[in-house]
């Protein structure tokens, strides 16, 4: 009996990501969820700009490439054009969603647009060569902050889940990680819930996945996971930040 194999929604090609990059794990989780929910035929993904720009080559569903940061706006159009038959997800990094695409993100959340957003936060611009991102930690050394991020000069990192949870709009916000098997299982559960919310017409669901960038952090893949646990998780605590349906049931 096969207990683990490559999901059908993930194309049978080698990924271009660096060794140990957790994008691959997150791609697989999304593909597994699409398989399990049986929505491959009607799912449309929106790829971002960044390392995961070529995500359109890796998913066996329809994919659209959006301009930098505009994935939620493109997804809005795709969803509204045929809300019954389209399941739309966006897959975005932190340089895409939390920087240039912040307006689109906040407004689609405020409108409670019925889409699913997978937000991969690795605290750095990966594709362009390791520059400081809006989510880089205070003191973090990057190409553009060689002495560490100076918060007097560059300000503080943006905590997207906490920020969006202040809005009345979004249905579901959760921060997960993929640094160990337990967290990967929890991440899959969160992604599945985000897709189910869309199928049930509940509205905007965002799953923030705290991720690694071994190459630009200058660490080995294993050390990068340790760094994530030591440095990133205290700053970006995991958990559910908003779940409107659960709140309503509780009342």
């Amino acid at each position, binding site marked *: 009996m096969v*207990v683990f194999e490559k999901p059908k929604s993930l194309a049978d090609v080698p990924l271009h990501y660096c060794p140990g990059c957790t994008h691959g794990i997150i791609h*697989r989780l999304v593909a597994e969820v699409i398989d399990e929910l049986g929505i491959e035929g009607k799912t449309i993904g929106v790829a971002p700009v960044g390392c995961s720009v070529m995500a359109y080559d890796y998913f066996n569903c329809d994919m659209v490439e959006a301009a930098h940061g505009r994935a939620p706006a493109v997804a809005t159009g795709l969803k509204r054009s045929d809300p019954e038959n389209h399941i739309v997800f966006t897959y975005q990094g932190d340089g895409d969603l939390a920087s240039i695409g912040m307006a689109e993100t906040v407004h689609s959340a405020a409108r409670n647009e019925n889409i699913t957003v997978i937000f991969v936060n690795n605290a750095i611009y990966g594709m362009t060569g390791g520059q400081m991102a809006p989510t880089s930690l205070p003191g973090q050394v990057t190409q553009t902050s060689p002495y560490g991020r100076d918060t007097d000069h560059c300000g503080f990192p943006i905590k997207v889940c906490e920020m969006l949870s202040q809005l009345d709009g979004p249905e579901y916000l959760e921060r997960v990680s993929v640094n160990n*098997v337990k967290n990967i299982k929890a991440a899959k559960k969160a992604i599945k819930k985000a897709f189910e919310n869309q199928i049930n017409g509940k509205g905007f669901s965002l799953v923030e996945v705290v991720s690694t960038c071994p190459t630009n952090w200058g660490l080995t*893949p294993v050390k990068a996971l340790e760094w994530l646990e030591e440095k990133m998780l205290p700053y970006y605590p995991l958990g559910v930040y908003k779940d409107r349906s659960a709140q309503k049931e509780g009342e």
Partner: protein
Amino acid sequence: MAKVSFRTDFCKGCGLCVEACPKKILILAKDKINKKGHHPVEMTDQEKCIGCAFCATMCPDCIITVER
């Protein structure tokens, strides 16, 4: 008995599976180089494998298939 197979051509030698294996029976084969130029993962003792699929869960490149 559990059986684990690897598509070594796709392996990037990141070592996340080696770290995740509870039985510590996976290694990066230092004497081999795959098409991509990495040292691919290798099973040292199939008998000890319990088929937990932790390695496959951690693998970013989805090269591992686990059967039980």
